[in-house]
C-alpha cells in the first residue's frame, strides 16, 4: 500500500481536510498514520466508506481530552477528527432541546445557550471537551446527581457505521419510544461501534440562584455519613460531593443548592443541620465549587472511576486510606457521594505493583458496582485489567461483531479487548 495514495483517497472524501499524522497524533501511546476531518455526516460517510475499502483501523477523536482513557488501541491507522463538525444546528429555546454536531465543545454550546438562560447541564471533568467525546466516554461531574449523565440527556443520535452507512435514532422531542435507543448504545462505547456525528440533547433552564456549601470533617467516615444524609434528604441538592486529599484523615463534603434566592436561604439552613458533625461549615465561591468536578490527575497518575451503591462510599474511602498506609501510594479521592460515582487518583508512577494492588482493593470494595481504570501509565496497564468484571460481555461481543465485523473501529480499546 502506497501511503500517499491512501492520503489522496482519504482527502478526496473530505474536501482535502486530511493529512499525515504528526507525533502529537497518538492514541494512548499508539501512533496514527493519517488524520482526516470530515465537515458533515455525508463527508464522514464517504471517508469511512473509503477507509473500509482500504481496511484501515479507525479511531474517532474530538478535542483529545480523554484520548488517553480506555485501553490503547491495537492499531490506529486513521484518526477521524470531529473538529470541523462543531455547529449548533438547531436550537428552539421554547422546546428546551438542541441539535448539535459532535465536535462542538460544551463550553461553546453553553456560551450560546446562556443567552437564552439555558444550559446543557453536563459537567466537564476534563475541560475543553466536545459533546461527542463526552458522550462516547460517558463523563459526568457533580451535577449528575440532579441532571443525570449524558445517558439521561441525549435524545437522539446520527452516527456513521464502520462501513459508511449513516443512521439516525431517537428524535428531536424529549419523549419518544419509537425504535431502539442507539444513543444509549453509543454512549460510553469509546468509539468502538462507529462515529457519532450529531446529537440531540435536552437542555435545562439556568438556575436563578445557587449556593455551594462546604463542610470539613476530621474523619472520613463521619464525612461519608453526612454525605449520605444529604443525598437522602428532601433538600433536592444538585450535587453532593466528597473530597479527600492525599494523606488526609478527614474529608470535605460539598453540597450545591440551586433554585431561587429565597428558596436557597431556607434550604441552606436545613443543609447545615444535615451536615452536623462538621468542624467547619461555610459557603464557598461558586466558581470554586464548579471546579470541584475537574479531575486532579496528572499525566503519569492512575485514574480509577469507582461506582458503588450509596452506602458503599464509606468503604471506598476506607480502602483509599488503607492503601495509602499499607502500600505507601498517595491517593486523592473526589466524586459524587450523592450518586455513588467517585474518582480515585493514585499518584505513584514508580510503583506500578502498589498501584495495581490499590486497584484490586478498590474493585473488591466496589460491591454491586465497578472500578474502572480510565487512565494509567503503561507499566500499570500491564499489571491490571482496566475494566474489571463486565456483566453481559458475551452479548457485547455480538453487538460489536454486528456493527464492526472486521473490528476496525478503535480495536482493543474497550471491555474484553473489543
Amino acid at each position, binding site marked *: 500500500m502506497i501511503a500517499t495514495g491512501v492520503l489522496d483517497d482519504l482527502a478526496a472524501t473530505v474536501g482535502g481536510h486530511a493529512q499525515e499524522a504528526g507525533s502529537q497524533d497518538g492514541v494512548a501511546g499508539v501512533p496514527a498514520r493519517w488524520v482526516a476531518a470530515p465537515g458533515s455526516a455525508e463527508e464522514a460517510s464517504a471517508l469511512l466508506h473509503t477507509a473500509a475499502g482500504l481496511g484501515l483501523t479507525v479511531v474517532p477523536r474530538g478535542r483529545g481530552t480523554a484520548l488517553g482513557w480506555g485501553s490503547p488501541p491495537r492499531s490506529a491507522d486513521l484518526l477521524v477528527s470531529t473538529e470541523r463538525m462543531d455547529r449548533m444546528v438547531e436550537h428552539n*429555546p421554547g422546546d428546551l432541546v438542541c441539535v448539535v454536531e459532535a465536535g462542538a465543545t460544551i463550553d461553546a454550546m453553553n456560551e450560546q445557550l446562556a443567552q437564552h438562560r439555558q444550559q446543557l447541564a453536563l459537567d466537564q471533568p476534563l475541560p475543553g471537551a466536545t459533546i461527542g467525546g463526552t458522550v462516547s466516554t460517558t463523563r459526568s461531574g457533580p451535577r449528575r446527581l440532579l441532571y443525570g449523565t449524558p445517558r439521561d440527556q441525549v435524545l437522539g443520535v446520527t452516527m456513521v457505521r464502520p462501513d459508511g452507512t449513516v443512521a439516525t435514532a431517537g428524535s428531536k422531542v424529549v*419523549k419518544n419510544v419509537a425504535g431502539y435507543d442507539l444513543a444509549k448504545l453509543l454512549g460510553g462505547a469509546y468509539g468502538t461501534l462507529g462515529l457519532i456525528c450529531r446529537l440531540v440533547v435536552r437542555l435545562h433552564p439556568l438556575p436563578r440562584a445557587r449556593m455551594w456549601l462546604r463542610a470539613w470533617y476530621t474523619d472520613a467516615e463521619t464525612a461519608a455519613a453526612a454525605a449520605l444524609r444529604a443525598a437522602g434528604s428532601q433538600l433536592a441538592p444538585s450535587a453532593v460531593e466528597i473530597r479527600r486529599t492525599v494523606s488526609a484523615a478527614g474529608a470535605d463534603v460539598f453540597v450545591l443548592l440551586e433554585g431561587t434566592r429565597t428558596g436557597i436561604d431556607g434550604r441552606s439552613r436545613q443543609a447545615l443541620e444535615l451536615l452536623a458533625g462538621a468542624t467547619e461549615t461555610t459557603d464557598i465561591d461558586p466558581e470554586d465549587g464548579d471546579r470541584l468536578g475537574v479531575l486532579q490527575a496528572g499525566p503519569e497518575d492512575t485514574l480509577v472511576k469507582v461506582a458503588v451503591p450509596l*452506602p458503599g462510599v464509606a468503604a471506598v474511602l476506607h480502602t483509599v486510606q488503607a492503601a495509602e498506609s499499607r502500600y505507601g501510594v498517595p491517593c486523592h479521592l473526589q466524586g459524587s457521594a450523592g450518586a455513588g460515582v467517585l474518582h480515585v487518583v493514585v499518584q505513584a508512577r514508580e510503583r506500578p505493583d502498589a498501584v495495581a494492588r490499590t486497584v484490586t482493593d478498590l474493585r473488591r470494595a466496589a460491591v454491586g458496582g465497578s472500578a474502572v481504570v480510565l487512565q494509567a501509565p503503561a507499566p500499570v496497564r500491564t499489571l491490571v485489567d482496566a475494566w474489571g468484571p463486565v456483566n453481559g460481555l458475551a452479548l457485547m461481543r455480538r453487538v460489536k461483531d454486528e456493527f464492526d465485523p472486521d473490528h476496525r473501529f478503535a480495536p482493543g480499546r474497550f471491555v474484553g479487548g473489543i
Partner: protein
Amino acid sequence: MTTHPTGPVPAEVTGHDTAGSVQELARRCRALLGDEAVITDEARRRTYECDGLAAYTVVPALVVLAADTNIVREVVAHCHELGVPFVARGSGTGLSGGALPHAEGVLIVTSRMREILDVDPRAQRAVVQPGVINLDVTAAAAPHGYYYAPDPSSQQICSIGGNVAENSGGAHCLKYGFTTNHVLSVQMVAPDGALTRLGTTAPDAPGYDLLGAVVGSEGTLGIVTEATVRLTRAPEAVVTLLAGFRSTDDAGTAVSAIIGAGVVPAAIEMMDRLSIEAAEKAVACGYPAGAGAVLVVELDGPAAEVETQVGEVREHCDAAGAFEIRQAVDDAQRALIWKGRKSAFAAVGRISPDYIVQDGVIPRTALPEVLRRIDALARDNGVRVANVFHAGDGNLHPLVLFDGSEEGATERAEDVSGQILRLCLEHGGSITGEHGVGADKAAYMPQMFSDDDLDTMQLVRCAFDPRYLSNPGKVFPTPRLCGERPGRRSGTHPLQDAGVAEIF
C-alpha cells in the same frame, strides 16, 4: 390503520419449520411445570388473545404461566432449540399490541412473578420481579420516604416487566424521566436461553449500555426476569393547581410562559373541552364550568422553592387568561384534580360508543398549530377528537371518537388517527411517546426512520436474537435477515414473498 402481519415467521428467518414444534414444546413444558401452568385448551388460550389494544387479536398456540426465572429460562431455551417464537406478557395493559401473541408461538406470562425481593432505602434501590405491579413498588418504598417515579396512568395494574419493555413514562416524566432513567440493572433471559445480567446496582456499569437498548425494546431482545430500580426521595412539598381557560390556545400560552420562565413542574397536563365533558360525565370531577381547556400543574420539591414556583405559575396562568385557579394542598384535593385527568381515556366511552387512543409527540412549541390542524382534520372527516396531553413535553393523546356501527366510521376514524401521526412527524416529532410501536405502529416506522436507520437498529436485534424468535413482527415492519449485508439484497424480501411482511 394498516393491519400488521403476525403470522408465522418463515423458515428462511428462523431456520426452522414451526409446525409440530409447538406440540413438542407443550410436551416439554408440561414435563417441566405440570399441567396447571401450561395452557393448551383453546378457550383458555383465547383469553390471552389481546393486550390493552383490543383491536388486534391473535390466539397464541400455547400459554405458559411462569413462576420463576428458571422456568422462563428453560422455556426460552426450548423455544430456541425448537425454533418456536415466544412473546412475553406482564399484566397485558400495553396500548400498542406489544404483547399481542404469536399464532404459532408461546405466550410466556410473567404476572405470577410478583415478588418484591429487596427494598433498600439507604441505597435508594429496590429489586423486583417482572410481574410486580408498578404502584406496589411505591407502596413498598413509601414507609421509608421513597417512591418509584415512573407513573403510567395504568400504574395500579401494569407490571414492571411491561414498563421495562415499553420504557413507560407517565405524567411526571417531564421532571423525573422515564423507566430507562430509573432501571439500574436487569437479569434477563436472552433469546438463546442464556441467563444474563446487564448493568450493576451502582450507576455507570462498564461496557456497552445494553440495558439502555433493552429498556424500550418491546420484548424483542429477550425477557427480563428481575429488575433493580432506583427509588426517589419523596418531595418535601407537593402542590397541584387546576386552572380553567377559555381555549387551548390560552392554556398553551400559559404553558409556554411557565417553561420560558425556567420553572420545571413535575407535571403539566392539558385537557380540552370535549375530554373535560367526558370526564365530568364519568367521574364528576367538578372542573371549572365552561372551560375550553384546563391545565393541571403539579409542582414538587423543597417547600421553600415550591412556594415561590406556585406564585409564579399562578401569575402566568392569570396573564394567559385563566378564569379560575384552584390549588390542592392535601392528598384528597389533589386526588380529586387528578381524577378527571386519569379517567380521561376511559371516560370518553361515556360520550362515544367507540374511540381510538392515539399517542404522538411534537415539539412543545408546535402545540397550537398542531391542535388547529387536528381540529381541521376532525371537521373534514366528520369525526370528533378529544385531546388530552402531557403539555410540558408535547406528548399528545388525541382520542378519536366514532360509532363503529355507522357505515365507514371506523375507517374514517382510523384514517384521522393515522393522519395525526403524520402531523407529528411533519413537525419533527415522534409516532409514539409512551405507548410503544408494538404491532400497531410498525407500519409507521418507515415514515419516521430511513431504511438505513431501521437496518442499524436491527443490528442490535441480530446480536441478541439472530433467529428472530423474541416477539417477532413487533416494532420493525420488515425483519432484517441477520448476517445479511445491507445493499446487497436483490429482488423481493423473502418475508414479502411469504406474504408475511409488506414493504411500507
